[in-house]
């Protein structure tokens, strides 16, 4: 065994994140580490890389026990990592970010030439053609992710830990990454892969450890012995069965709740026309960077609309800010980036959900806590958010529950038109299914939903119609027949078959 972590225990204030987790890695293998949101995967990885110190258990590399007091110790021991969150220094160049933990130096000064050469070599491993001197603040999310991977590869590590490395990568980029993962495995390295995308996991991993509530329920078993369903059952902890989403029927004659006609924006959107009816889900598909979130934000008045018309319930409107969208037109927007834009992590759940309804609840400018709690608990129950009390801090919730909180706030505001942006990124299988059910229910209840997603199966499962966007313009619209194979082909063809795409050199769009 190359790396052994046994009976790890880690407690955060109020949460026992790890409760006797064990991970055994063999050289020359790709090891999948799976589990629901909050199962403790990232915590385990952080312990293995010296970010957290375990409260109990031991970590050994080969025969020697490791006592790491910081990330540097892990690097010295030959453990490389790509964390779930992005961790680049914004003002620094790509090269410096890649080599920050062991800057080549001469007389205490940074040796720039060597740094650049070294960085180029690492980028080359990923076939990335980026200028090592460019500042990372210019990179797209996907590029930044790739740079982090290059950074992990810069140490010649025996063990490489990847925590959801493909969450913001396109299919092509992910494939390239997995190519390298296989190469590393063949060279005798051990790679740990954390991912919620089970298809990818099954395609690349050899062995698997499944965490549930901080305990390992499967320890270093060969993956070949399992089906995807069995793995999911393990993660969830009980038999897992299919249910059907009820068929929904939308009368095509219903007047659209939201209609865009030839909308152009200051951001560069060109002639976007689409419409959503009450009770309908319009899927808006595109690759990362296609401009969908930007379109949603322009609709809410956060970016300038330069021409075209936006109609809400048949009346042309001009929305200046989110408050107006919410109170004037009952439009809500569930953001794609819940940690930065969706939630107030250091505030209570009650405040997080209540923020949209205070205006309604306030008497003489004062909001009674009781009235707020009443509203909050209604939506907490309705969405099945698992919280210990409404005064728990939002930051203490697991990813899925956080996502539900950011949805709850818009339901509480009684929105009729809801834009949902990447609702299930980084969310485990079970929660994802629950979310899908929820979204379908909302549509059933008569909401008009615009579902932005880069997850093709998700779109095909949920949407009634699918609009495909690329490079800030609409490529076409399809009626969804829920046949995954056919729909996905049609969509991909729309994206790539489109003629006039100016060459921009964007890696992620390639």
């Amino acid at each position, binding site marked *: 065994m190359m790396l052994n972590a046994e009976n790890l225990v880690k407690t955060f204030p109020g949460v026992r994140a790890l409760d006797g987790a064990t991970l055994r890695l063999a050289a020359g293998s790709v090891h999948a580490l799976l589990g629901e949101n909050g199962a403790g995967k990232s915590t385990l990885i952080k312990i293995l890389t010296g*970010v957290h110190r375990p409260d109990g258990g031991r970590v050994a590399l080969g025969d020697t026990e490791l006592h790491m007091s*910081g990330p540097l110790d892990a690097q010295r021991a030959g453990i490389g990592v790509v964390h779930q969150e992005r*961790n680049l220094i*914004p003002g620094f160049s790509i090269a410096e970010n890649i080599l920050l933990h062991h800057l080549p130096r001469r007389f205490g*000064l940074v040796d720039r030439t060597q740094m650049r050469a070294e960085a180029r070599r690492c980028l080359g491993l990923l076939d990335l053609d980026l200028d090592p001197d460019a500042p990372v603040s*210019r990179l797209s999310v996907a590029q930044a992710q790739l740079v982090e991977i290059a950074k992990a590869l810069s140490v010649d590590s025996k063990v490489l830990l990847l925590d959801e490395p493909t969450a913001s990568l396109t299919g092509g980029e992910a494939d390239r990454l997995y190519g390298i993962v296989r190469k590393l495995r063949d060279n005798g390295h051990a790679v740990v892969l954390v991912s919620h995308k089970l298809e990818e996991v099954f395609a690349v991993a050899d062995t698997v450890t499944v965490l549930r509530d901080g305990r390992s329920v499967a320890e270093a078993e060969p993956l070949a012995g399992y089906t995807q369903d069995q793995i999911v059952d393990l993660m969830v902890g009980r038999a897992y069965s299919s249910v059907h989403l009820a068929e929904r029927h939308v009368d095509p004659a219903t007047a659209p709740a939201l209609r865009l006609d030839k909308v152009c924006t200051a951001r560069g959107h060109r002639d976007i026309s689409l419409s959503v009816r009450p009770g309908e889900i319009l899927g808006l598909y595109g690759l990362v960077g296609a401009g969908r979130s930007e379109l949603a934000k322009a609709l809410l008045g956060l970016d300038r609309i330069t021409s075209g018309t936006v109609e809400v319930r048949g009346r042309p409107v001009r929305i200046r800010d989110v408050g107006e969208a919410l109170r004037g037109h009952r439009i809500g927007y569930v953001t794609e980036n819940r940690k930065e834009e969706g939630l107030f992590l250091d505030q209570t759940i009650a405040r997080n959900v209540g923020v949209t309804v205070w205006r309604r609840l306030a008497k003489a400018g004062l909001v009674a806590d009781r009235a707020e709690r009443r509203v909050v608990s209604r939506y907490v129950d309705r969405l099945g958010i698992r919280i210990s009390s409404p005064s728990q801090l939002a930051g203490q919730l697991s990813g899925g529950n956080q996502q539900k909180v950011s949805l709850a706030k818009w339901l509480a505001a009684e929105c009729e038109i809801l834009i949902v942006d990447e609702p299930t990124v980084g969310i485990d299988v079970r929660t994802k299914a629950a979310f899908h059910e929820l979204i379908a229910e909302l549509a059933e209840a008569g909401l008009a939903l615009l579902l932005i997603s880069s997850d093709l199966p998700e779109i095909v499962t949920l949407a009634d119609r699918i609009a495909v966007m690329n490079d800030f313009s609409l490529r076409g619209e399809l009626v969804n027949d829920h046949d995954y194979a056919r729909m996905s082909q049609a969509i991909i063809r729309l994206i790539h078959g489109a003629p006039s795409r100016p060459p921009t050199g964007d890696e992620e769009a390639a």
Partner: protein
Amino acid sequence: MSTGTTTAGRAGLGGRFKGVSARPEFTLAVLAAAGFVVLAVATDGNLLSRGTLDAFFRFLAVPIVIGLSQMVVLAIGQMNLSVGALTGLCAMVAAWLMLEGGLPAPLAILGALGVGLAAGLVNGLLVVLTRINGFIVTLATMTIIEGLRYGVNGPDTFQGYSQGLRDLGSTSLLGLPVVLVLALVVAAMVALFFGRAVVGRQLLATGGSPFAARLSGVSNDRSIVIAHGLSGLLAGVAAVITVAASGSVNSSIGDDLLLPSFAAPIIGGVALAGGVVSVVGTCLAAFLVRLVDVMQAQFDINPRWIDLIVGAVVLGAVLLGTVRQKLSKRSS
């Protein structure tokens, strides 16, 4: 937004760390040059006379060094409110060592630098050990240092210490006062430190993103202690310059340094959030503020108007920066 290669490779020292562009320094340089020319013309060339230039540059040294002293802590996203009082304390200690301690000037200088460094390190250690915001810690230590500064000699003035040191303070080298040359050398060293030294880069990493820095093996605690220590050391340098250039010191020294210490880096384009420094910008900003000073003497303006003007200039510079940023964003 332009893609591909960026300006990081452009510009020499100083401009380099701005990362995004060297333009803020450029604007400042143009402003400084224009201001200087206008003032020279307006005073019928008096500004260019030997005496005036000498006074202009001699009293530019301390603002530069004190601005750098603040900048070093701003680099890690903190503030040091004790710089002014500390400069005063170091100056008093240096004078005390020479006059009461009977030490030769070089030893007294070392003493002052040592006191500055030690006080800075204490600041840093307090921040690290107590986890209290640096702003608050230095607020408290400022009070303590004020007490110590007064304790050295009460309200009385030290005068008549080492002739050599005072001569150094008033001689010129190639037309520039030695003290300014010293300040510029210090500035160049600070620029080198942040631009090329591994430790300096680590400080900036801590300022830019503490968590990411930690994951890359940078000890943020160490960065904090180093930054505060360096800030204290620079306050010590400012004190030495003061002792040399002014010929007399008392416990009021440093009282007027706190605001300028912020003004120079902030006008110079240093972000309070940390992770960005600009040595050139800081020096140019100090130059600009000094121009305003001189303007006051030349035209007999009520000093209170100067406060008003400096306040307006800082606001204006800041607004200009924002406008420029917006424009450059729009144009790309």
